[in-house]
Each structure stands twice: as C-alpha cells, then as structure tokens.
C-alpha cells in the first residue's frame, strides 16, 4: 500500500504541478476550466489506449517506438506551451488588464497541454496498476486506498501551487507564469532531444558538459522537482543544452515580435 502511495504520488505530482501553473497562467480566461477538463478526459482516455496498444507501439521504430512517441508527445506539449505564452502576451497587450475573451483555437492549446501532460505518465500508471491488480497478493481495497491517497496528495500539492502562484504574484501573474512555462517548455525540448538520441536518430554533442550531481542529484526528490520546474539535468549534454537555450530563444523572439506588432494598438 505504501509503495503504491509513493509511486502514484511521484508520477501524478509532475502532472499536477504543471496543471497548477497552467491553471494559474490562464486565470481569468472565460471557459478555461472547460478546456482544462476536456484535456484531462482526453489525457486519461489516451493513456488507457496507449497502455492497451503498448506492445505494438513499443515495438515500432525498430524497438524504439517508446522513445519516439515520448519525444513527439514532449515536442507537441512544448510547442503548445510556447504558443500559449506568445498568444497570451499578445492578448495582454491588446486588452491590458481586462479579462481575456475566449478564443477557441488558442484555448485548444490549453487542452492539448493538459492532455499531453497526462499522457506522458498516464500510460505507465495504467500498465503498472494493471500489473499490480493482477499479480499482487494484497487486497484490492488496500491497493486502491494506497493509489487513491497518493493521487490525492499529489493533486492537493498542485492546487496549493495554483493558489500560491495567484496569491504571491498578484499583478505580475502573467509575467511570472510566462517565465515558469518557458522554463518548463525548454526542459521538455531538452528531454525530447535526449529521447531522439536514445532512439538512435541523433548522435551529436553527446559528451556531458558538467556533472552537478554532487550538489543536487537528479535522483533526489529536490532534483526531480527542479527537473519538473526548470528542466534540471545534473549532467547535461551539449545537445540538451542547445535545445534548452534554443527554446528560450524562440520564445523570446516570438514574444518580442508580437509586442512590436502591438505597439500601434497600445497608442490608440
């Protein structure tokens, strides 16, 4: 039971923290809960489907289907986060402090971010739970309690993060959430780069640039939380660092361009 608690807590915490930030970033947008909720449903359905067809998916791409599909999920997720940051900056320039009107296409990106966040860990959780239910000697009641408590604890931390960001950032909510989301997106593309290496598609810049595991190990709880928030890797390769920096660069350039375009509007 304790084991299930820990595994569910750890796997769901990452999703829950990301959703907390997304929920804070989209605060004040009409119908945003609808888009977040439909993303959650799509993510859960998708996770079950991936788990059901896992053997088929994993054996594709010469046995590297898992790496390839995870890389695609991460890259889609990161692009949608970038899109959301740029779009929100644009919308903020237009409306200033007014509440944002819902724009269906842009809000769809929020659903996709939510769904992909769940997909990343979801299929693993489904496969793991299925295995435990069919093989464990413990009673189903205990197994269910352990996993439910782990999930609830992780979700509560996500909600606390959401409330915390809104309370602390106040007027600077948009700026703070944009920075947080930019770092998360950069971490995702760095991770995707490594998955492309794992799948034998890329072979460049593979020497680790440094090793800071003696300060913060990526395996420690703090290291994992840092990994979720800023994409912390204790021994990054040149390729991972390049993807990380390039992503931040792209976000900076796109946001700058958009705000230049908006200048005439501001002077109206």
């Amino acid at each position, binding site marked *: 039971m304790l084991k299930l608690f820990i595994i569910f807590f750890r796997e769901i915490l990452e999703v829950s923290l990301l959703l907390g930030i997304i929920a804070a970033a989209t605060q004040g947008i009409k119908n945003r809960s609808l888009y977040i909720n439909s993303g959650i449903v799509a993510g859960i359905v998708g996770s079950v489907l991936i788990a059901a067809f896992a053997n088929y998916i994993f054996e594709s791409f010469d046995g590297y289907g898992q790496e390839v599909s995870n890389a695609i999920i991460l890259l889609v997720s990161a692009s949608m986060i970038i899109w959301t940051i740029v779009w929100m900056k644009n919308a903020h320039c237009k409306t200033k402090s007014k509440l944002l009107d819902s724009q269906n296409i842009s809000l769809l990106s929020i659903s996709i971010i939510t769904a992909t966040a769940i997909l990343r860990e979801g299929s693993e959780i489904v496969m793991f739970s299925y295995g435990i239910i069919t093989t464990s000697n413990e009673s189903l009641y205990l197994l269910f309690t352990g996993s439910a408590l782990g999930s609830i604890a992780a979700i509560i931390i996500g909600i606390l993060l959401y409330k915390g960001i809104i309370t602390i950032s106040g007027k600077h909510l948009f700026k703070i959430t944009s920075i947080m989301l930019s770092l998360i997106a950069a971490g995702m593309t760095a991770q995707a780069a490594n998955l492309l290496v794992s799948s034998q598609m890329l072979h*460049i810049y593979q020497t680790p640039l440094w090793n800071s595991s003696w300060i913060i190990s990526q395996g420690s709880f703090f290291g994992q939380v840092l990994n979720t928030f800023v994409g912390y890797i204790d021994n990054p390769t040149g390729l991972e660092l390049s993807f990380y920096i390039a992503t931040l660069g792209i976000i900076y350039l796109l946001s700058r361009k958009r705000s230049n375009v908006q200048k005439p509007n501001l002077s109206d």
Partner: protein
Amino acid sequence: MQKKLLYLFLYVFAFISPALAYEKETHEIEIKDHKFYPNVIETTKDKVIKLRIFNKDKTIEEFESFDLKREKIVAGNRKIVITVGPLKPGEYIFFGELHPETAQGKLIIK
C-alpha cells in the same frame, strides 16, 4: 558573414560523433523478482553498448539511469533494447524505477 557560417558549419561538423565508427557490443540482462541478472556489467571504453533487457516478471518495470540518460518501460514478459555509448571510463548506475529497493545495477566502463 559567409566565413562565419563556414566556421559554424565546421564547428558543428567536428562535434558530430559517427556512432557507426565505434565497436558494438551486446549484453543481455534479465529482470526476475524485481532484480537485475547480471546486476554488474563490465566492459571497455569507446564502445556502443546494446543492452537487451528481458523482463521475466509479470509486472512492468521502468529501466532508468540518470548516469546513462535512459528511461524505458519494459512490460511484463517483454523485451526492450537500450543503446548507450560510446562511454568514458566510470561507473554508470541504473535501476528499476518501479522497484528501486531491489532492482539495482551498474555498468562499469574501464
């Protein structure tokens, strides 16, 4: 500008490590009762190492290593392949993320 681009190109090209040029080696690892057999693998540096992992348990496991930068699910009674390297001498720890208390192993490069 053109000169700069040429330098950039050369710089990028110099760092591309053609993995094909390295010697290849395959090692088999079994997972049984949430443990790796063998749990220590020794080899020499500058090789591309293929790890074939066969999970003989009914439950899924996730092969994970921060040192090797790999993370891969292996379903019950299934096999996966992980390719790493070329690696520098040292110890590279790996573990089963879903049973870290028992599933531990390391790759030693000399």
